[in-house]
């Protein structure tokens, strides 16, 4: 928000002095037909420098609209559903039309009442147009100014919404004024679309220009370089022809080629096409669809437990889902030139993929059906969480990284190892929950060997988890020792990782010592899921330490829901255990240690 504060004064002046976007000189020009496919494609392919990296304009538009509208589409005044690129075309070339599109999600209408507008005819959670919000803007920015001074943690939900809404309106206005300079406006207003790569091809990491930046550089004794002048002229032509769909399209294609060529000359267009293809194909959506289909297969497996077809199709669909997810992760690695995990969003993808892959492996070895059911459920839940997080966070999921994270060696070793540790911990918790709930409802009551097999699987996964959690945690310390000069600093994230390791060591020692048997191990592993969740997400919400990212409240409630479910499962497992103990004579189960002691005694006696 600091950028927001800095630009605040300029903003208020803009809002109050301007009579709004409706009063533009060419207000009579409106878009009369939908944008053509080729126009959308050409505009989406233009590279833009945003958030410290080069990305396609389609990605930029997609996250810009997600931030404002909470989804990747907007409804125009004519009822047309606009995709992000069409919306961005409207905002930049037909701001008068865009002002009438429903582009602003307001989650609670109290925020609207707070800025003095009427909510008649609107739902409590509804989408608003710029034009509808315009009368309340002086009050919106005045309130946002006051609320912004309050520490984010201490703000009420309405105060936060007012601040967010003001920030969104400001972003919209920045975009809408991108080409004001061509209509006699001030070129210093339109810095949003930094799509022009510098002509200089040697200076790496140089900021790109928005057309307005170049125009602002023109003075009585200062003219543009011929190449820059040609780009500006083409933009001017484009704006002039905006009402003529055919001419607009051909000019836009020519402009795109020019901008792409400039980016290519600097070697900065390398992965833009791949990113376009990644979002166009959207492997994560297809992976989710595959997991949901597998989930349906799971339902059929419950209804017809002996059906081989249901089992095979669930296994196939889950494997396809996993492959698609792995494809998505690999594509992201290539685009970012990074190891698979460097942001929280990517941890979700990676954890989901590893959980599913390990479960599919277990199923292939055992063919006992519970692993594949768990895999389908985890795949579906994992990708819903990923989508939910993306919608809540509303930020580009391939951001630039701060200096300390700029090390592919440690990202590849420590981060990957610890994330596999999370995955295995979560998988163990899911399998253990399967065991405990199954026991409660009498699943496989007559086949104790199948249950024992499931418990043994939980044990195996905990062992797998321990290797990666331990190595990942210690490598984290070694990285910290290389970055800050201390191996261990009791930072919350470090403590969280330590808690995971300790819990898994306790489980294995207690099992070996005979203190935990199948039921106990599964209860501990199910509880262990909450320890992983605490370390993965919970410590970030504490607001202290080196890994404090500051989140929205949605994550808080999702996390507590998960804690509640897992504790509930552990409690129910306890009930099932007590019930069994009361009804059956407790037959001691041999453990390795007891077995060893008995053998030793027998040898001594002999």
């Amino acid at each position, binding site marked *: 928000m600091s950028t927001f504060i800095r630009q605040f004064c300029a903003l208020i002046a803009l809002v109050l002095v301007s009579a709004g976007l409706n009063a533009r000189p060419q207000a009579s020009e409106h878009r009369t037909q939908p944008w053509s496919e080729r126009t959308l494609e050409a505009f989406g392919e233009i590279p833009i420098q945003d958030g410290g*990296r080069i990305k396609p304009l389609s990605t930029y538009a997609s996250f810009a609209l997600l931030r404002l509208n909470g989804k990747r589409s907007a409804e125009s005044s004519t009822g047309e559903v606009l995709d992000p690129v069409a919306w961005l075309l409207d905002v930049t070339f037909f701001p008068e039309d865009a002002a009438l599109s429903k582009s602003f999600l307001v989650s609670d209408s109290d925020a609207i009442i707070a800025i003095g507008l009427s909510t008649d005819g609107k739902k409590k959670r509804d989408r608003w147009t710029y034009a509808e919000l315009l009368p309340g803007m002086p009050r919106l920015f005045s309130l946002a100014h006051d609320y912004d001074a309050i520490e984010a943690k201490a703000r009420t939900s309405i105060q936060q919404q007012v601040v967010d809404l003001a920030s969104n309106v400001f972003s919209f206005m920045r975009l809408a004024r991108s080409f004001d300079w061509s209509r006699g406006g001030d070129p210093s207003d339109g810095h949003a679309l930094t799509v022009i790569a510098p002509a200089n091809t040697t200076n790496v990491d140089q900021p790109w220009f928005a057309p307005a930046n170049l125009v602002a550089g023109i003075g009585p004794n200062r003219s543009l370089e011929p190449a820059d002048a040609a780009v500006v002229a083409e933009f001017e032509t484009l704006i002039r022809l905006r009402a003529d769909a055919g001419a607009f399209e051909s000019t836009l294609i020519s402009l795109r080629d020019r901008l792409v060529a400039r980016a290519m000359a600097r070697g900065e267009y390398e992965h833009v096409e791949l990113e376009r293809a990644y979002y166009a194909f959207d492997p994560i959506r297809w992976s989710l669809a595959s997991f949901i289909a597998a989930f349906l297969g799971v339902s059929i497996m419950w209804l017809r437990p002996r059906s081989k077809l249901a089992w095979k199709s669930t296994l196939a669909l889950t494997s396809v889902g996993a492959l698609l997810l792995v494809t998505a992760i690999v594509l992201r690695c290539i685009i970012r030139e990074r190891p698979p995990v460097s942001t929280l969003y990517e941890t979700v993808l990676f954890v989901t993929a590893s959980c599913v892959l390990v479960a599919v492996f277990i199923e292939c070895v055992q063919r006992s059906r519970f692993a594949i059911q768990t895999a389908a459920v985890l795949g579906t839940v994992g990708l819903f969480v990923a989508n939910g997080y993306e919608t809540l966070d509303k930020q580009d999921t391939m951001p630039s990284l701060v200096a300390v994270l700029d090390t592919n060696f440690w990202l590849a070793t420590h981060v990957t190892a610890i994330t596999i540790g999370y995955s295995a911990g979560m998988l163990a918790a899911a399998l253990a929950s399967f065991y405990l709930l199954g026991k409660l409802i009498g699943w496989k009551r007559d086949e104790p060997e199948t249950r024992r097999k499931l418990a043994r699987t939980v044990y195996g996964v905990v062992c797998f988890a321990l290797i990666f959690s331990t190595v990942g945690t210690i490598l984290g310390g070694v990285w910290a020792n290389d970055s800050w000069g201390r191996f261990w600093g009791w930072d919350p994230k470090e403590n969280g990782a330590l808690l995971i390791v300790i819990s898994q060591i306790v489980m294995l020692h207690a099992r070996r010592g005979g203190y935990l048997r199948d039921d106990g191990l599964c209860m501990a592993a199910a509880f262990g899921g909450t320890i992983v969740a605490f370390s993965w997400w919970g410590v970030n919400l*504490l607001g202290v330490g080196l890994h404090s990212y500051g989140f929205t409240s949605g994550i808080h409630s999702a996390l507590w829901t998960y804690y509640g479910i897992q504790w509930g499962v552990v409690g129910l497992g306890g009930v099932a255990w007590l019930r069994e103990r009361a009804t059956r004579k407790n037959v001691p189960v041999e453990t390795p240690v007891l077995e060893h002691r008995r053998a030793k005694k027998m040898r001594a006696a002999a």
Partner: protein
Amino acid sequence: MKRFARCLLAVFSSLGTSCILLVLLGLLTWLGTLEQTRTGLFEVQRKYFESFFLVHRFGSIPIPLPGANLVMCLLAVNLFVGGLVRIRKSWATFGIIVAHVGIAMLLASALVKYEWSEDGHVTLYEGQRADHFESYFRWEIALIRKEDDGKTREWLVPHERIEDAQRSRVRVSMTDVPFELEIESLARNCRPEWAKDAGAHGPIVVDGVRLVSRAVDARAEANIAGACVSVVDERDGIRRRALLWGAEAKPFTFFAAGKPWALSLRKERYEMPFALQLARFTKEDHPGIDMPKSFQSDVKVASAGVERDVKISMNEPLRDGGLVLYQASWGPSNARPGDRLFSTFAVVRNPADQWPLAACLVIAAGLLFHFVRKLVRYVQLEARAA
């Protein structure tokens, strides 16, 4: 007696003891993590992780707990007796024993770091040179005499002796010094103020100034200590009293035995086996935004008459002469292009610097051997059953 010893050995080596101690360590880690939202890391570290006993308040209910230091000492004994000495030796336990050796190495490196490491920082403006680094929060009183040949000679009062002054006056005599120092009082965090009324109680007033104590900051490095020190010369019966404040730019100076002396309260200093000069500091941002992409200091390291150029950046420290120097901070934060910048390096002398990495490899090897062996046997068993 023998039976008791055997019983004690059995308790110390048991898996039950391991479980209880690990659960306690987990509990302390969890409580210490949550407590950080209320008090600072430094306080939490002292209370939960570097203590032998503590009282955790759960609301208004006090719960006595063993500190992590005690738990880890007992765990080390448990690991050694149960996990290395008494454990059955066979291929089935080989991996576990190796992993336990790795954990013992990790504990040993923690002990060495805790007992024998020194850490601090050195801050240099571009062009500046230093041959020592300073502690973050340990103080010392330096007595400096200017010799006839223009050189200086130093005597130091260490941190622990100064801290004793919180309880009672501390008399310090030093060889070749014709007087004694008496530390009359010490404040861990204070600031000087003009004393309008010099009352009989309260802080000592010297030349109309007194040191007013402030609440101790949870961030240990933010505290500025202050002391009232008297120079007591028994021969001429003169007593010179001075207020020393940690953030004072200039020392207290006086003449005694015909020579000029200076007295200053400063952060503890440690010699470096080389001289360090900052040639240039570079901070790069990602293009178009404020997010830092890299920090880098170009330094010259001079030792034994040889000078070499070294780059120190995030994740790439300088290791030389038993010291490790890290890029820690920079400034001034409001510097404009062309302004002279400073760079701060965290400096650590840790004999166990790379031990954790070795321990990690040993643990990984042990666990992998053990679990892969088990997995292979399990898969074979399943294949046979199928």
